């Protein structure tokens, strides 16, 4: 078998024993909820209220609950990293002494939502600024202060660039004449040719 994906550290062992003690009823739902939010950085999956409800539902103290949630997230992140098959995941979990029914719950949740989660991770970008929206306007300029009777078509491109730090979208405006737009388009075509040569 491949090298263990989940190392058997002290905290892992404790988490496993806690997990084994937990009732199996709500477990699958917890798993799918965690899977959905896994790709969002630095966002805890549960609000204060929800955490309290979980504490009651699983009869766990706050600290123990945190340990359990973190461990499950860690296991899922490892599954994403190595692109594990559900069966392999189940095997790994059973080798660290997780009960079979819990391991099966992991495997089926992973089989259902695993690929989507991996895809979301693939789309994650490291650069702080990302192009989010594209808008445009085509105008026919009739005149301006220095020149009358123009009739020149001009395009205005609006690019919405998101910044990781702030929640606002920075709008970048650029104006193009027909010729300028044509040149821009040719450059985009070059990029496309490069992308095509990759596949």
């Amino acid at each position: 078998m491949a090298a263990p994906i989940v190392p058997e550290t002290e905290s892992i062992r404790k988490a496993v024993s806690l997990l084994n003690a937990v009732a199996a009823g709500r477990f699958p739902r917890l798993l799918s909820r965690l899977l959905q939010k896994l790709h969002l950085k630095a966002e805890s999956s549960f609000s204060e209220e929800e955490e309290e409800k979980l504490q009651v539902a699983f009869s766990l103290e706050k600290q123990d609950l945190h340990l359990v949630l973190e461990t499950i997230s860690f296991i899922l992140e490892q599954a994403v990293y190595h692109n594990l098959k559900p069966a392999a995941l189940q095997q790994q979990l059973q080798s660290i002494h997780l009960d079979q029914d819990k391991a099966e719950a992991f495997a089926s949740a992973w089989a259902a939502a695993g690929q989507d989660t991996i895809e979301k991770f693939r789309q994650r970008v490291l650069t702080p600024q990302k192009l989010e929206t594209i808008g445009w306007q085509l105008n026919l300029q009739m005149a301006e202060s220095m020149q009358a009777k123009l009739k020149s078509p001009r395009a205005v491109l609006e690019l919405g660039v998101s910044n990781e730090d702030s929640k606002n979208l920075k709008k970048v405006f650029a104006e193009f004449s027909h010729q300028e737009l044509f040149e821009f388009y040719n450059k985009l075509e070059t990029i496309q040719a490069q992308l095509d040569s990759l596949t």
Partner: protein
Amino acid sequence: IGFLFTVTVNALEGKDCKESVKLIAESTNLSEEQLAFLISGMYTLLREALRLPLSTFKQEVSSGSTQGLDQIPEDFIADFSSIVFGNRRPVSEGTAQRSRLPSVQDFKWRVDVAISTSSLARALQPSILMLLKLSDGTAHRFEVPVAKFQELRYNVALILKEMNDLEKRSILKIQD
């Protein structure tokens, strides 16, 4: 008078003319006030004439109408015509469109393929990085996911098509 024309044309082109104006002031015996009148009058006249595209003018018409104004000498009209029609017409830099949104001055890009990341041992995900420098001096660097890039390409092609359609339509063929 001829020299005044040169200065005015330079001013229209956006060049700095403080030196030339000083020279003129020293070499003639006109008062400062008269000089100011002359230069601003010529500047305004030329600017308005240059605003209209060439096709609306007829050379003789222009000469005729300026003759109506008092005491404009013949050689002035000749100089004036040569500036508006001839090869002394200011380079389009000065009369070019100044009231516009920034245009793209420089567009650099690169295509990357992420082989492995901290979240995925085998990612193999292509992505595009763009650096857009605009004419107002600002630079914007951002990543473009492949799907967004397709959207951008599609939209630009769409605008080009609309521009083509617009230019073919008869509204542009109306002579004014």
